[in-house]
């Protein structure tokens, strides 16, 4: 063997390997197993959590194999790349043969091939082959678009077929998989995904990127003009809505209300309502009720401010606002925390004033019961910011895939041969058929057509 022949042999067998369905099956099963593994190990957690869960040795091994961000690891991406190559090579390998079948000017029919089929029905008829074929031809034409009649020394053959083009369906499916992968690639190279929290009335231009510890500066400023949340009676959130203004080059470019499932889009970047949270209120009032006199006083307050308690009761300083305060394991929700300095030389006490539970402070059994009167809630909106120029490629892939499936699964290339051969009493008629899909359906169809033919008269 000459070196070039040897090389050709090598290229050939590499091509065969890359075109084989066996490789497809190995890849699909490997991808499935790897994905299972990836769901058993939480992805993108912190190193400390992993070390605690797996110990240092296993942690090291997993770290080397990129298990903690497995779906983006080199080896997982390599498997996907192999699948793509497999699809492309396999499709090229087969397309020329399929092409010839589909676009043949004069498709060749081989009567022997039909005779060997198991999907076959026979009956005897009195007429001659010539007359019978004239009777049968219009009936067959009802079911099949293309028809040819051949006469040979043995007898007459009617060939008919339909749906040749449906053989392309599989290629549409395979193409769609490749397009999906390309779309995903475009997104991962040219897109980004991040998030930012903006308090009502404030603006932001810098976002934090997801899963990597980086920030990114946008070309424009996002201002949150307003945020609202409404609740169902059960207390679960019903809708959150942010009014956002985009400011570019000092100019207001766009204002829009966004809710979950209805983002704002600006210059290829989409801004999604993702979450929200409460902030320390600007203004509030605190209610002081005296046990001694029974009098109640409502006094304006703000975080960091100090109030003189009436009736010379001492001083109260609001130290902080906690959106989710916890007291003995119970979540109290939004809570004002403050320091009470009663009159005289008693030592100061830190106390909690949950907004939702006005009588909470009674438990303390002090001279005064303090509660939150009016509070104006202030929120920040949690925005998810994404840019993905590959989305439209991906959506094209989605559409193609569905179209391809419908063609591949529900349509088929069907062929039928009616052989009319003279015998002692007239003719023997054999109806045989084949289909690329739904073989049982084709059997039924052959039976039905045979029944029609056997009762047809001139």
């Amino acid at each position: 063997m000459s070196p070039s022949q040897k090389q050709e042999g090598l290229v050939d067998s590499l091509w065969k390997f890359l075109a084989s369905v066996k490789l497809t099956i190995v890849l699909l099963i490997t991808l499935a197993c790897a994905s299972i593994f990836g769901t058993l190990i939480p992805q993108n957690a912190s190193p400390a959590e992993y070390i605690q869960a797996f110990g240092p040795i296993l942690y090291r091994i997993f770290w080397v194999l990129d298990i903690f961000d497995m779906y983006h690891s080199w080896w997982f991406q390599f498997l996907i790349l192999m699948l793509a190559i497999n699809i492309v090579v396999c499709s090229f390998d087969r397309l020329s043969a399929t092409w010839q079948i589909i676009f043949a000017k004069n498709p060749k029919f081989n009567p022997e091939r039909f005779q060997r089929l198991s999907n076959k029905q026979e009956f005897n008829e009195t007429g001659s082959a010539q007359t019978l074929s004239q009777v049968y031809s219009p009936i067959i034409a009802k079911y099949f678009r293309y028809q040819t009649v051949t006469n040979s020394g043995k007898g007459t053959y009617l060939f008919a077929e339909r749906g040749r083009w449906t053989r392309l369906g599989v290629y549409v499916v395979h193409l769609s998989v490749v397009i999906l992968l390309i779309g995903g690639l475009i997104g991962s190279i040219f897109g980004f995904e991040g998030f930012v929290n903006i308090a009502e009335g404030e603006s932001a231009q810098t976002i934090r990127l997801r899963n990597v510890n980086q920030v990114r500066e946008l070309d424009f400023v996002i201002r949150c003009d307003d945020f609202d949340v409404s609740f169902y009676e059960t207390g679960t959130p019903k809708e959150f809505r942010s009014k956002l203004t985009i400011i570019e080059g000092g100019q207001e470019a766009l204002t829009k209300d966004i809710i979950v499932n209805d983002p704002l889009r600006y210059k290829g970047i989409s801004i999604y309502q993702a979450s929200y949270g409460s902030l320390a209120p600007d203004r509030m009032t605190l209610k002081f009720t005296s046990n001694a006199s029974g009098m109640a006083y409502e006094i304006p307050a703000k975080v960091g401010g100090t109030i003189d308690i009436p009736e010379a009761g001492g001083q109260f300083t609001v130290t902080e606002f906690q959106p989710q305060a916890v007291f003995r394991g119970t979540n109290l929700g939004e809570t004002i925390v403050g320091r009470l300095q009663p009159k005289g030389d008693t030592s100061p006490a830190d106390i909690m004033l949950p907004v939702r539970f006005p009588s909470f402070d009674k438990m303390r059994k002090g001279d005064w019961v303090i509660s939150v009167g009016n509070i104006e809630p202030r929120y920040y909106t949690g925005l998810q910011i994404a840019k993905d120029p590959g989305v439209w490629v991906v959506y094209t892939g989605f559409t193609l895939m569905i179209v391809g499936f419908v063609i591949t699964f529900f349509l088929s290339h069907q062929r039928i041969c009616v052989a009319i051969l003279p015998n002692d009493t007239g003719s023997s008629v054999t109806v045989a058929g084949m289909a690329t899909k739904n073989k049982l359906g084709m059997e039924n169809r052959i039976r039905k057509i045979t029944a029609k033919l056997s009762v047809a008269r001139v």
Partner: protein
Amino acid sequence: MSSSQILSLVTFIYGLAAFLYLVAWIFRQDLPGKLATWVALTGAAANTAGLILRWVESYKLGIGHAPLSNLYESLIFFAWTIACFYLVIERIYKNRTIGAFSMPLAFLAIAYASLSPNISDRIQPLLPALKSNWLIAHVITCFIGYAAFAIAFGVSIMYLFKQRASGDQLQFLQRLPEIRVLDELTHQLVMFGFLFLSVGIITGAVWANSAWGRYWGWDPKETWSLITWFIYATLLHARLMRGWQGKRIAFLSITGFMAVLFTYFGVNLLPGLHSYGAMG
């Protein structure tokens, strides 16, 4: 009657239908089989009524939404699709033994919804992210796919039974459809299911993109639906390889359905969480 009451009743109707199909098959009787079909039809009708009534009830509560928003509702819908799907197949293939392997699945789905103490049948308001037509399309297509896979699973079990049976010592196995019919039926069902699972994954991706700006995030539930997809893609291609007809296809179909079940129920057991666990 409230929708929950109707649906509890459906549980028993489906149970009865499953029982009758099994009796008809094992004791080779036609009468229980005919009865089973009528019982199953009644069950499916009542199931439909229950779903519609639940929809109406949610509007009366002022939180109107399609009854497809939590585990209870999805199980009810799952049972409904299995029952309807099976009844169509019974008509086409004119063989009631398939019912002995399909109706029990419809029964189990609805029984789990009605009887499990962990599953609440209360009509709950929708979280903001769940208010999307894409989500409705997503749930419906996924469950049509799951129903096809469920019946394919039943048919694959029949295949394995039938394949084992040698001679006529087990007469009740003879009532099962011919082995090549079972093989073809599995293929048809898997193709159908694969189409719907794919559309389900796609509509889910479109929904995720409209809600969070990412059509794919490798969260465990998404990943498991992809794993399921890989398994059935393997099945479809395995038929093209020599020696992979029949038994191995049946095993793949069974494995695929296990993956469906895990996607549906098991994912919550995994570390991490699906952003909106309400679906399962």
